[in-house]
């Protein structure tokens, strides 16, 4: 009998800076401001990872799933051949409407960039797959590529949105992809990374995304092993071995597949303590007890602050005992989330309100009118 390989967890650990800006009227703006804001938290990163998620950047292709792919390898030929392998898979399972290499600036020096390609696709479901929803189909295919196809990695797969990330300081990555010139989005989230124990890999940078959900995260999840196996039972392959990936998948499972609103999701990821639950009125107590009982394995334990991006929404959440705080602010239609208030002030010196949300309490920014982006 063949020996089953021992399952080894290689979790990485990092400290980070996160920032998010959203225009709730749906007006789009370039990445210039957020690049400046994240640069202000330079010392919170160490140049080993930076990335952006931008919503509303592909209005002309808004009905198609935009796949961002990384092809890695030791040489340009190796990267090309990884792409050829992937293309064959893609053409079999998707209708590709258009594709191009994601433009980058050669003036910015980054270390060992992979070949980064963009595809706009529609699912071509065959046989039994016809029973899957488009989104479930995409998730299945993304998991397949990321676990089975060597040297190819899907790091963005939503509609009218995209992630840009790599090894470097976030402001450098922004310039590399020319986010201040080429793209306008109504929501930007950004991440500067300080990994403490892994070799730099482009795919390991934040944001982590699946479909339209992106997550940037600061902290370490000590419940990783528990969260991971729970998600694996639902078909999420945790390939990147970072905490953030499990948050992205948990959000997908709860918010997309089970349509649970963020207020409740927050009570699953960062539930109140039993002492508080026991003091609530009967109805609330029953609800929260049931949530903790059923979803105990999705409790994210340990310090974290995250910004979740979704179509039309930007959400901030911290762990239940607020070991990693986050600052929220508004100015007119602008809504900001940041690891540090100073970064918000840098790009918007005058603010209508600034506050530090309680542990486990989500702050949600929503578009005033969803139609502006759909």
């Amino acid at each position, binding site marked *: 009998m063949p020996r089953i390989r*021992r399952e080894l967890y290689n979790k990485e*650990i990092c400290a980070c800076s996160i920032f998010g800006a959203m225009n709730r009227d749906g007006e789009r703006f370039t990445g210039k401001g957020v690049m400046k804001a994240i640069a202000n938290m330079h010392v919170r990163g160490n140049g080993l990872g930076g990335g952006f998620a931008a919503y509303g950047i592909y209005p002309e292709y808004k009905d198609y799933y935009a796949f961002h792919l990384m092809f890695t390898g030791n040489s340009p030929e190796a990267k090309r051949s990884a792409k050829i392998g992937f293309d064959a898979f893609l053409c079999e399972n998707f209708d590709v409407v258009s594709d191009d290499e994601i433009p980058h600036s050669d003036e910015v020096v980054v270390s060992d960039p992979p070949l980064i390609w963009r595809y706009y696709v529609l699912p071509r479901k065959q046989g039994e797959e016809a029973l899957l929803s488009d989104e479930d189909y995409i998730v299945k295919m993304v998991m397949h590529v990321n676990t089975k196809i060597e040297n190819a990695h899907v790091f963005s797969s939503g509609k009218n949105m995209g992630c840009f990330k790599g090894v470097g300081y976030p402001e450098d990555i922004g310039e590399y992809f020319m986010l201040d010139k080429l793209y306008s989005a109504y929501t930007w989230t950004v991440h500067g990374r300080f990994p403490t124990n892994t070799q730099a890999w482009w795919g390991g940078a934040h944001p982590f995304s699946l479909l339209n959900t992106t997550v940037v995260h600061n902290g370490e999840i000590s419940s990783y092993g528990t969260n991971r196996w729970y998600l694996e*039972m639902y078909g999420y392959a945790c390939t990147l071995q970072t905490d953030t990936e499990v948050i992205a998948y948990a959000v997908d499972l709860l918010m997309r597949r089970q349509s649970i609103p963020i207020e409740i999701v927050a009570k699953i990821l960062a539930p109140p303590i039993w002492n508080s639950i026991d003091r609530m009125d009967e109805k609330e107590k029953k609800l929260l007890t049931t949530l903790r009982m059923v979803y105990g394995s999705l409790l994210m334990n340990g310090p974290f602050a995250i910004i979740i991006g979704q179509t039309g929404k930007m959400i901030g959440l911290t762990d239940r005992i607020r070991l990693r705080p986050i600052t929220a602010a508004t100015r007119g239609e602008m809504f900001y989330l940041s690891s540090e208030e100073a970064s918000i002030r840098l790009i918007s010196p005058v603010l209508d309100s600034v506050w530090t949300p309680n542990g486990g309490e989500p702050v949600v920014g929503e578009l005033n009118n969803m139609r502006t982006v759909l």
Partner: protein
Amino acid sequence: MKSFVFPEFQIIRDEEKCGQCRGCERQCSFGTHTYDPLTDRLISDDYKCAGCQRCVIFCPKDAIVVRPTQSFYRPNASWSREKIEDLKKQAETGGVILTGCGNDKPFRIYWDHIVLNASQVTNPSIDPLREPMELRTFLGAKPDLMDIDFKGGDVEIKTKISPHLMVETPILFSAMSYGAISYNAFKSLATASKQFGTLFNTGEGGLPRELRAEFGGNAIVQVASGRYGIDAEYLNCAAAVEIKVGQGAKPGIGGHLPGEKVSQSVAETRMIPVGTDAISPAPHHDIYSIEDLSMLIHALKEATNYEKPVSVKIAAVHNVAAIASGIVRAGADIIAIDGLRGGTGAAPKAIRDNVGIPIELAISALDMRLKNEGIRNRCSIVAAGGLRSSSDIIKAIALGADAVYIGTAALIAMGCTLCQKCNTGKCNWGLCTQDPRLSGRLNTEIATKRLTNLLNAWSHEIMEMLGGMGINAIESLRGNRDHLRGIGLYEWELEVLGIKGAGQ
């Protein structure tokens, strides 16, 4: 026939100290000590000594030492003293050697080869004295997905959730039947579990009627192959029902409570005549397949109006993971697995010492199997058999258990010294006996206090270790093998445990 087995223990009495109070004589149920009025001295018969240390602890003058005998056979790595003596005993009696307690052989104890993690810098450790630290645990089947309804800010859970048990610490008292243990010991376990907010298990000997109203809510009642003491009220007064298929100390073997232990009260509770042997057959005579088990599970759910989780307890044997997976599919809400080191009131020594697998490996194999099959949510795992300390328990949880059962540890808390004479019914500590003179020695109030103290101490230690790992709720450690590393283990062992080696 003259026995060729020499005494196991040697009793040394310091005659200078001894005050001839005859305390030791009264304490020993095995009749080891006798008073000789002629010499005004106490005489001890080493042959009778069980090594339970009762007289040592109760001698007011600290005059007695009981130690392993100095005599020995010529050392022989193959023919150990135990092997030679067991053989001699059998040559003298022609019978099966019976014993009590759990397997005492030097099989590898994996707990002692696993180390825990702690936070440094990137993830703050949490101080349980200042911050909340939660051990509350729910046992039962969880739905895969929940249907939640939202109407105008009002949230309602539409999925019907199966019944659950709630415990304030993931430590439950293992099955020990009234009959095997004394009434006082049984009642102490019940009282302690009630006081602490956890559960005790009645074992297969029923639940005395007068205890039902008060302690039913903290009882897991067993349905075993002998079907002793079962009626509708028994099932319905309890928190949960457990079908006992196997026991770690004696997988594949039934139970035998000798008639001498079946007193009036034991007989009433078991619903059998006084003084008759209570024999539990090896298999349930209505379970010869997984389908039969499924029918029994559902019959019990039907009998309890689907209000109580049903647990199935099996011994950890070679294919434990596959068997347990079948049991989950058969409808069990909880799987209790009992490992190689699980204790017993009486078992054939050959079985106790040679059948089954260590619980550490069984927990991990079962947890991984259920995850791979995507059905881990559908049941809770309660691990039993050889948990000796809070660190064993926390490791069991990190390997995938939801909670643990402690049996031997609870007995030790009440005074047991693991003398392995439970099968004689003469337990000097008042635990494994129905002799009123002996069982009366166990003061329920004190025993209860000792048990709650133990739960308290272990829970605190678990909190400290959890906090060290940067975790503040026990559910975040369940199956979280990240926090474990192995030391001195072979590759295949690390594989089964699903953990890395230290330093990896």
